[in-house]
Each structure stands twice: as C-alpha cells, then as structure tokens.
C-alpha cells in the first residue's frame, strides 16, 4: 500500500487466566485511512483496541507508533502520544458542561498570576476552542456550550465525544461502536463526522458490528478471529457476506490475504 504504517502491532498476546484474548495478533494502520476492525463477539477486538489505546498491557508483543516502540501504561499516556479514543460509553461527565467535558483532564488555565497562583481556569478560552471545534465539525446547533451534557440527545453526545477526540488527537482516533446506540439519522451524522475527521488527515480505527456502516466508510477492513488478525480485505473487492463468512469461519479467506 502506501509508505510506512503509522501504527503497527506485532505478536500481541493477552491472557486472562486460561482465556487467551489476543493470540499473537498483528495490526497495521496507515496514514489518512479509515481502518475498520470487525470480528465476532469474543474474537479479541476489544482487547486489541485496548492494547493500542493503553487501557490494557499486553503480556507480549510490540507496538510501534511512527516507527518507535511504545509502552503505554494508561490511556493518558496514549493520549499524550496523540492517540484519542471515543469509548462506546463516551466517557462524558453528564452534569458538566460541553466545554468542561471537552477539556476534562487537560484544562487551560488563565495566563499570569490568576492561573499560576490561583489556578483559575480560562473558561473563555476553553469555550471558544470547544465552540470552534464543534462548528468545524458542523455540530453547532448545540446552542449553548455551557449546557450540561445530560441535556443533549444521544447523537449530540456522540458528537461532543468525537469533537473532543478530533480536537486533541494528533495521530490516531479510535472509535468504539460509535453508531451502536444511535438512530438511523444520527448514525448518518456520525458517519459524516468520520469522513470529516479523515479529510483532515487523521487516520481512524473504527470498531463496529454494523456491516453497512463499515463497508461505507472503511478503506480497509481488518478481520479479527480467534484472537488474531485473520486477514485484511478491501471493501470494494469483497461483499458483506464474504466478510461475515470470514469473520465467523464459514469460509476461509484467499491465501494471499492471510496475514
């Protein structure tokens, strides 16, 4: 394909007692692409993604970002390295405002004495950046940036979470089932958001069970089975039924695709 992959994983192993969630799994993500990760329940998708986003530590194997080996001990370290994750449960604080949520854990303080000695937050700056980001992603029918997240609809909340990831993710954005809890129209909006984020050059890892969505937005599809990467297919060359057949083991993928 293109030059060097941005993010790679080789031989990842993760065991939970006698269960092997990752069995020497590999992973590659290239710049500017949307990579979908699909797999049956229990195939190890979540473990793979968690290993990349720093939520779990693999027992073995190597992850490289930009060619440099990385060992995340927490999601915060992954974030600092530029990998943002939109979790399925969104990880938003319902009672806090949109702006507070977007900057949770990386607040901006006022310049000068107020910020340095009194640690005062720069609400204006945070609200402005939050508003800019939401506008950029076409989400600005949210009228009031100071309103609590719990007063938003499901799609709007998803929008806030995606905007947060897009605002801070400098290398990779991971989205875990972003459309699972949404209606048809809100799903459409989120798929547009994925395209918007991609247009701005950020590669996206999309975990989804929704085949139509996966085939619409993905450039490549990583099929995970029994704890390892089974194959990577081009959605233009295969049908959804092929993908499902590979994923469930009903059909073996062509030999040249097997990773």
């Amino acid at each position, binding site marked *: 394909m293109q030059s060097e992959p941005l993010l790679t994983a080789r031989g990842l192993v993760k065991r939970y007692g006698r269960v092997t969630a990752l069995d020497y799994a590999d992973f590659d993500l290239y710049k500017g692409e949307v990579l979908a990760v699909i797999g049956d329940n229990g195939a190890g998708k979540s473990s793979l993604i968690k290993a990349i986003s720093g939520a779990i530590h693999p027992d073995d194997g190597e992850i490289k970002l930009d060619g440099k080996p990385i060992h995340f001990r927490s999601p*915060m370290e992954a974030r600092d390295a530029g990998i943002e994750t939109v979790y399925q449960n969104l990880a938003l604080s*319902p009672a806090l405002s949109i702006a507070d949520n977007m900057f949770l854990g990386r607040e901006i303080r006022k310049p000068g004495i107020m910020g340095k000695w009194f640690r005062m937050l720069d609400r204006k700056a945070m609200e402005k950046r939050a508003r800019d980001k939401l506008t950029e992603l076409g989400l600005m029918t949210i009228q009031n940036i100071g309103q609590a997240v*719990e007063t938003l609809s499901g799609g709007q909340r998803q929008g806030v979470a995606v905007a947060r990831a897009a605002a801070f993710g400098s290398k990779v954005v991971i989205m875990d089932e972003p459309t699972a809890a949404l209606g048809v129209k809100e799903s459409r909006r989120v798929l547009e958001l994925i395209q918007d984020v991609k247009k701005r050059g950020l590669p996206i890892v999309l975990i989804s069970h929704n085949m139509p969505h996966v085939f619409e937005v993905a450039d490549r599809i990583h099929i995970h089975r029994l704890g390892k990467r089974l194959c990577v297919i081009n959605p233009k060359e295969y049908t959804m039924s092929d993908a499902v057949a590979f994923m469930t083991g009903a059909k073996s993928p062509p030999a040249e695709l097997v990773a």
Partner: protein
Amino acid sequence: MTETNTTSQTGQEFERVLSQSATTVASFDQHERSPLEKLRHFLHSSPASVPLIVLVLSLLIFAVIVGSRFFTPFALSLILQQVAIVGIVGAAQTLVVLTAGIDLSVGAIMVLTSVVMGQFTFRYGMPVELAILCGVALGALCGFINGFLIATVKLPPFIVTLGTWQIFLATTYIYSANETIRAQDIETNAPLLQFFGQKINIGGATFTYGVFAMLILIAVLWYVLNHTAWGRHVYAIGDDPEAAKLSGVRTKRVVITVYVLAGLICALAGWASIGRNGSVSPQIGQFANIESITAVVIGGMSLFGGRGSILGMLFGALIVGVFSFGMRMYGTDVQWTYLIIGVLIILAVAIDQWIRKVAG
C-alpha cells in the same frame, strides 16, 4: 446537529428516503416550556436556589410568629455563631459528598484534633502554635487514612468511615483519659486555642472569628470547586468515576486529596470548637457527622455525587440553625425542631429527584 448535507452524500440504500424526512431530529425541542418546566430547568442550573428560598421563607415565618425579638442583628448573628462549627464540618462533608462518598468520621476527627491540640499544650508543655500544627497534621493524616482505604484499597466510603469514626473516637477517649481541660486554664495559659471564640461587634451584631473562618473557608472552597481543574475533577468523579478516569482525570489522587482536605478542615473545626466551648473536652461533637450530612442534604446536594453547590450546604446549615433558634425563642418543645428538620431532609431529597428528571 444539522442535517443539511444528508441528501448530497451517497449513503446507504435504505437511507435515501431520509431526504424527505424532517431535518430537525437532533436539535432541541423548541416547544414552549410550561412554567413548571422552566422552574425545573432553573433549579437544575442553580442547585443552591432551593435551600436559599427555604431559608428566606423560614426567616420570614419566624419573624412573623416570634416577632421583632427575632429580627434583631444580635439574634441573627447568634444563629451564625451557632452554625459556624457545623458549617465548617459541612464544608468538609461537601467535598466528600461531591465525589459520591460520605464521611461519618468528620466529628470524630474534629474531637480528636481538638483534644490533641489541648493535651499537647498542657500535658507536654508544647508551644501552643506547635500543638495546633500537630492537631492539623493529625487531621490530615486521619483524612489520608480514609482516602487511602477508599481510593487505593477500594472499600466503600460508608464502611471505611464507619470504622474510622469508632477508631478515632476510641483513640480520643483512651488518649485523653476522658479528661477535660478547663476553660480558665486555657484562657490564662494558651489563649490562642480559643482564638476562634473571640468576638467583634458590628452594629449590634456579634460575630466570633469562627463565623469568619466558616465564611472565608466556604468562599475559598466555592472558588476552588468552580474555577479550578481540581474542583471540576471532583464533580466529574462524583458524576461518573469511570468516565472521569477515561477522560484523563487522575481519580485516585483526587479522591485521596479530597479526604485529606476534609481531614484538614475538620482539624480547623476542632480548633474552632475550642473557641466555641471554651474548654477542651472529648465529649463534644457527638453529632457533628449527622449534622453535617443534614446540612449537605437540606442544602440540595445529591448523595449520589457530582451535583450541588457548597453555598447550598451553607444555606442548609443556616436553615437548621434558624429553626432550632426560632423554635427555642418561640418556646415550644425542642423536639418540634427535629421533626421539622426530618421533614425537610425528605423533602430536599424528593426535590432533588424531581430536578434530576430534567435530564430525561
């Protein structure tokens, strides 16, 4: 969210029909809100307003039934004096309750630290300043024990503080041998211990330094909770600890600092209580934990965490103060006060539940 571009994009076959559908799905309901809904939204956005309204109402009621005796600067400032200790302990409780925790040991820490301040001065002849510092440090240590057991060992706050409450209280009795240091001795030998009991007069109203300590403490905490990252993290943890953690809040550290700070504040309350009572006695503050929780709940804070304002706690403490003082002036059985406070607690929680429905 706008839906304007929906039709121009290719989309899925089954989504083609969306071009004819309404385009306002994700925007807000624009329907006219009923006055009741408006009220609910207002209360949702300013949680301290309910207790403030109740406070003003209760002041008016007592002004009417007790008469002009009640509405004097002296009488009103007396209420503030009586509320000062509960207000300080309530500030500590506020921090803990915001993280969806509860601290049953606040009163015990207060007594333990006040006894240590007194005994260190009189038993060991330590300079008063140093003895007070030791008391404050011990308060922080007690808070750290609570915080460590809750955040690191991951035990439920109720159980941890139920245990430490007993432990701190027993330690107080064992250490002090149930001995009281008399007010006169403190007055002549270590007046600094009674610092917060000193009074100043402003236009007929009498304020102890303890009242100012409470007001300044609450103002500072209000600022910290609303205008610093740490304060926002406290709210976020009470709201949804898992989400806060994934968003990058160092939850363990914040929870421990909350309990340490609560312990420090309880030590301050211990010092202030010496000023209020004059003497140092292990018998004081038996109900400080329950009183502080009462203030917090009547103040409109949610025991489920993440909601409420420290100003609400102050109003809650004042409501209790107004009722107990007013009832006494009116001359009824003091049990009526407890009965009314009990009703207020239940009402406050019911109102909290109703306000929360704004989110649904």
